C-alpha cells in the first residue's frame, strides 16, 4: 500500500514537472530593444515595412512584444513565440512598459527637426547653363549657419566648377517658410569644351551674395529656392558676374 502511494506521488510530481515545461516559455531571439506589454485589442503584424505587405499575425491583449528595429515610420517587433513582423507607428499607441507606463512613439513634425546639419541638392541655372549644387550646411546658432557648396554647370561651350564657403543668416528661424541671406567666397574653374579653339582652363576666385527661402517640409526634409550673384575676380581687365537661380531639397541630421 505504501509502495502504491509512493508511486502515485512520484507520478504526480512527474506530471507536474511536465506541465511546467509545457507552459509557454518565451523564445526571444535577442534581448535588444524594448519589451512592452500590449494593452489594446488586436495589433496586426505586416511581413515587411509597408502598408502594401500582407498581414500574417495578430498580437492579443496582454502579450509582451519586443520592439527592436525601425525603418521610416515602421517598427519591427517580435512576439514571445519568436514571430517577427512590422507595425506602423500609428498603431503602437497602446503599449506599456513593466512599470505600467504608456510608451509613446512620437511622430516628429518640422518643429522637432534636429536641424544642426543638412545635406542638400539644388538644380538650376548658372550663367545660363544647367547646373547642380551639392551642399553641406552646419547651423551653429539658431540664426547663423555655415555652408560648403560645390556647383557643376554644363554650358554649351564650357563647363564650370565652383567650390565655395558661405555664411547664412536666418532672421526668422521659427517660421516654417523662412528667408535667409548669404555671403560667401570660393574658387571657380572654367574648362572650355574641346571643340572651342582655346582649350585652356581658367581658375579664379569669386565672392557671392545671395538669398532665398527655406521651407521646413517635415522633420527630415527642407525645401529651398535661392538666388545668388557672384563676381569672379579675374586677372584680366574686367571682372565677370555670374547669376544663379536654384531650387532643391536637403536632408536634416
Amino acid at each position, binding site marked *: 500500500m505504501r509502495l502504491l502511494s509512493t508511486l502515485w506521488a512520484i507520478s504526480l510530481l512527474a506530471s507536474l514537472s511536465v506541465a511546467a515545461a509545457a507552459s509557454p516559455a518565451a523564445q526571444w531571439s535577442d534581448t535588444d530593444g524594448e519589451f512592452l506589454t500590449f494593452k489594446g485589442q488586436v495589433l496586426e503584424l505586416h511581413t515587411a515595412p509597408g*502598408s502594401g505587405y500582407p498581414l500574417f499575425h495578430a498580437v492579443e491583449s496582454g502579450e509582451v512584444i519586443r520592439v*527592436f*528595429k*525601425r525603418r*521610416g515610420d515602421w517598427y*519591427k517587433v517580435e512576439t514571445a513565440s519568436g514571430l517577427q513582423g512590422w507595425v506602423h507607428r500609428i498603431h503602437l499607441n497602446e503599449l506599456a512598459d513593466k512599470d505600467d507606463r504608456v510608451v*509613446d512613439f512620437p511622430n516628429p513634425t518640422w518643429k522637432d527637426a534636429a536641424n544642426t546639419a543638412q545635406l542638400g541638392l539644388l*538644380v538650376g541655372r548658372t550663367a545660363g547653363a544647367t547646373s547642380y549644387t551639392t551642399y553641406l550646411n552646419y547651423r551653429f546658432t539658431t540664426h547663423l549657419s555655415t555652408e560648403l557648396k560645390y556647383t*557643376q554647370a*554644363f554650358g554649351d561651350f564650357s563647363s564650370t566648377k565652383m567650390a565655395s564657403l558661405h555664411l547664412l543668416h536666418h532672421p526668422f528661424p521659427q517660421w516654417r517658410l523662412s528667408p535667409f541671406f548669404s555671403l560667401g567666397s570660393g574658387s571657380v574653374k572654367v574648362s572650355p569644351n574641346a571643340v572651342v579653339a582655346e582649350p585652356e582652363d581658367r581658375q579664379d576666385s569669386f565672392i557671392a551674395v545671395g538669398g532665398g527661402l527655406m521651407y521646413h517640409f517635415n522633420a527630415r526634409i527642407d525645401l529651398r529656392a535661392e538666388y545668388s550673384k557672384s563676381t569672379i575676380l579675374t586677372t584680366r581687365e574686367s571682372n565677370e558676374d555670374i547669376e544663379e537661380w536654384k531650387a532643391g531639397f536637403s536632408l536634416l541630421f
Partner: protein
Amino acid sequence: MESRLQPVILTAALLSLAALPGSALGADSKSDDQVIDDIVKPDIQRRTIDDDKIDTEDFELGFYAGVMSVEDFGSNDVYGLRLAYHISESMFIEGAYGITQTQKTTAETLDRLVLLTDDQRELSYYSLNFGYNLLPGEHYVGRWAFNTNFYIVAGAGSTLFADEEYFTYNFGGGLRFFATDWLALHVDFRNYVFTHSLFGEDKKVQNLESSLGATLFF
C-alpha cells in the same frame, strides 16, 4: 382588527423605508467621492520610446554589375555603387556611380580611324535620383515567401567621357528582392541620356544599362 393593525404596520414600514434610504444615501455619497477621486487623479504615466534601444535602418548601400550599351561605342560591362536613403515607406533618394570601358565605333573598326585614346574610352557617370516604390509585393520561391518591391527612379547627374563632362539625366526602374530584412537583390534597368559633339555635331544619345546588384540596409 385588520384596520387597527394596518396603520401600525404601515407606519413601521414607512419608518424603516425612511431610515433605509438615509443610510444608503450616506454610503453612496462616500463612494461617489472615491469615484471622482479616481477619475481626477491621473494614474496613467507616459514616457517616450527609448530610441537608443531601437536599431534604425534607413540607408541602403550596395554594388551592381551589368551591361551598358553606349550609343556608337558598343555594349560594355559596367560596374557601380549605389547609396540610397529611404525617406518613407514609398520614397527614397539615391546616389549612384558607375564605370565602363567602351569599344571602338563602327567607323573606327572599318576605316581604321583613331577617334579616342584608350583613357578617353573610359566612361564614368554619377547621378542623384529620386525613387518611388510603386508595387510592394511578395514572390514565392518553393515554399518560401519573399518580400519585393518594384520601383521607378529618375534623376540627373554627369557623365565623364572622352575628357568631357556631360549633363546627363536618367530614368528607369527595378525590382528589389528582399532575401532578408537587411539584404536585398536588385534587377535594374536605366536609360542615361546626354548630348555630345564627338562627331562634330551635337548628338543626343541614350545609353541603356541593365544590371544585377545586391544592397545592405543599415
